[in-house]
């Protein structure tokens, strides 16, 4: 599975990013989310999100083999044990969808909430959906 985003339905509420950061750390933090909200103007907003690419450039770029495909969700998941925080995955991602966690220094990315993405669940406008 992977996320799908229809910008024409996006209302610019940023709920996706808020619930993402809240799920991670128990607080809302626009600087600490896996799905990022990009406000362009009052009538135009976007989200920056992981496409769970077929041949994921992030995984290919990782010298530690720390980004592995989850068998159940087919999401690319960071193994924090293996990650050394080199940041090569960030540079490799064409969508800007990976971050380095400010506290751990490790790479961090969307894991589709283990199959039940909070951002999709809370996007009542259905701009974000799950695609098989």
């Amino acid at each position: 599975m992977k996320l799908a985003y229809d910008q024409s339905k996006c209302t610019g509420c940023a709920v996706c990013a808020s619930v993402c950061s809240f799920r991670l750390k128990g607080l809302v933090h626009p600087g600490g989310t896996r799905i990022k909200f990009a406000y362009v103007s009052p009538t135009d907003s976007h989200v920056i999100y992981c496409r769970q690419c077929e041949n994921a450039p992030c995984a290919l770029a990782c010298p530690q083999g720390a980004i592995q495909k989850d068998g159940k969700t087919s999401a690319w998941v960071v193994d924090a044990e293996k990650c050394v925080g080199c940041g090569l995955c960030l540079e490799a991602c064409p969508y800007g969808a990976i971050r380095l966690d400010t506290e751990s220094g490790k790479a961090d990315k969307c894991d589709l909430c283990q199959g039940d993405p909070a951002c999709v669940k809370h996007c009542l406008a259905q701009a974000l959906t799950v695609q098989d």
Partner: protein
Amino acid sequence: MLKYGGYCGRFLRVDLTAKKITTEELTEEFVKKYVGCNGFGAAILYNELPARIDPFSAANKVVVATGPLTGTVVPCTPKVGFFTKSPLTGGFMDSYAGGHFGAELKFAGFDGVIIEGASEAPTWLYIEDGQAELRDASKLWGLSVPETEAAVRRDLNNDAVHVASIGPAGEQLVRFSCVMVDMSHAAGRGGVGAVLGSKKLKAIAVYGRKNPIPVADPEAVLALAEKIYQHIQETPSLATGMPKYGTTGALKANQTSGILGTRNWQSETFEHASSIDGDACLRELFEKNLACFQCPLRCTHFSRIKEGKYAGTTTIGPQYETMYSLGSVCGLTDIKAVAKANEYCNAMGLDTISAGVTVAFAMELYERGILSYEELGGLDLTFGNDEGLLAALESIVARRGIYKLLGEGTKRAAEVLGRETYKYAINVKGLELAGHSVRGYKGMSLGYATSTRGGSHQDMRHIPERAGLFDRRDPSGKAQLNYDITSTTTIRDTLNYCAMIEDVVGRVGITEKHAEMVNAVTGLNLSVNEVQQLADRIWNLERAFNVREGMSRKDDVLPYRFMHEPIPEGPSEGMYCPPEELEKMKDELYEIRGWTRDGIPSRDKLLELGLDQVAEELWP
């Protein structure tokens, strides 16, 4: 470091005279006593403003404040409050806007901003992650709201900033100028924009990425958020009504009950309602849903006028209040013209409610022959003439001829014009009335008359009466209803959730749900009784502010029309609020509130609420 959740723990203080910016820590005592937005604003203004100052003098202040819910995961909590001594009413004014500004201010590390003094040259304030600076606004002065936002974004080279700004109306001290947040969300009422104009503060821009907002009990907050989501999804009016119509559905509802302000409230049924209602918006205007920060309701709409003489105009909205004020109350029969006027007011920074009601006042004076075509500068202000309305709005902003006086609001205009024009001035305490009938709801009669702000629909709410939960035709019990509802709206504005989700925690009376909400986020552990006390403390403080300005029972009055002219036709025909009925309801309310017969909070009540300093001042 404050031990409670939901706060940054700091306010910015910006002295525009000295060009000095300082940071102040919120004390535990202050937070416990006032909790948030409305409470903070009331406390700071009461404590820091001397009595009887000119609202346009450097002595006045503008407090910008958020609540503990702002910037949390709790849905529908985008609001930011602006507080000042109103140039329109001369009393306490609080006005709230949605958008992203409030949350962004907290992500930048501040619960609020106190703006004081006055700058000689135009200036704007930039706040980013714990830092703030004043910048030169000489090139921004004179620009419309969208132009100002664009210039600020360009200057910062950052599209993601959120901006609160004033337009030319605020610069020109039109007394009903608003502050526009993210271009389309107005802190509309009472002239906060004009006060910023008098201080030469054109805009405030915020950007925050480094200050996440901790909450006291993340699990309880998440559970609360999920409960609100569930409520929304199970409530058709929220789940499907809001995205489809936003607030515009109210026009048809009010028309159906015969309580839609029409042609300066000469009537309350509008024969052209169907051409300016929510369905007309769907047909003619709405293109896309928009939403405030953290709001799944998406009640806002991006509109484009597709055909006719205003083709090509885009605007965000209109919302119900504007469809009333720039629509039915001015007799307009084309929703596209309403949208055009909405776009103009938003760009200039005019409160659409006061602006429309003021033009409607002039329209009635014109039709009655009290103001001539010449006196009106050669404008045909016949009800329904959209071009006349637009030209009048433009003349108000330009402060041209008689429109300079109209830009002072209907109360001042009627005083200067004389000729019994007060009979047609639709305001309470100087604030023009919102689009919910005084005559058609007994609760609203009392609510408008006694609201601290004046003619606002956000203290007393009409919805429980419109829904039939209380008999809108019967004055008995309305004092208690007023007390119960204004208590919840005060808490709403203090925690800062949107009026659209009032139902989730309840509109009538403080309950366990309000306490749960505040406690999950803050950890203040307030009991239901303490939340009630908080509401009482804030409301009494606002009232005391007005008392200190010389207001009392005599100012708790309604526009002449609503006390003397019954609704002439339609489903609510015959309803009005004669003075003796109003006075009786006031007696009952004052007693419930612990006020004297003159409407002054008693010494005992103030002491009971911990407002000792106020008690000393009002009862020396």
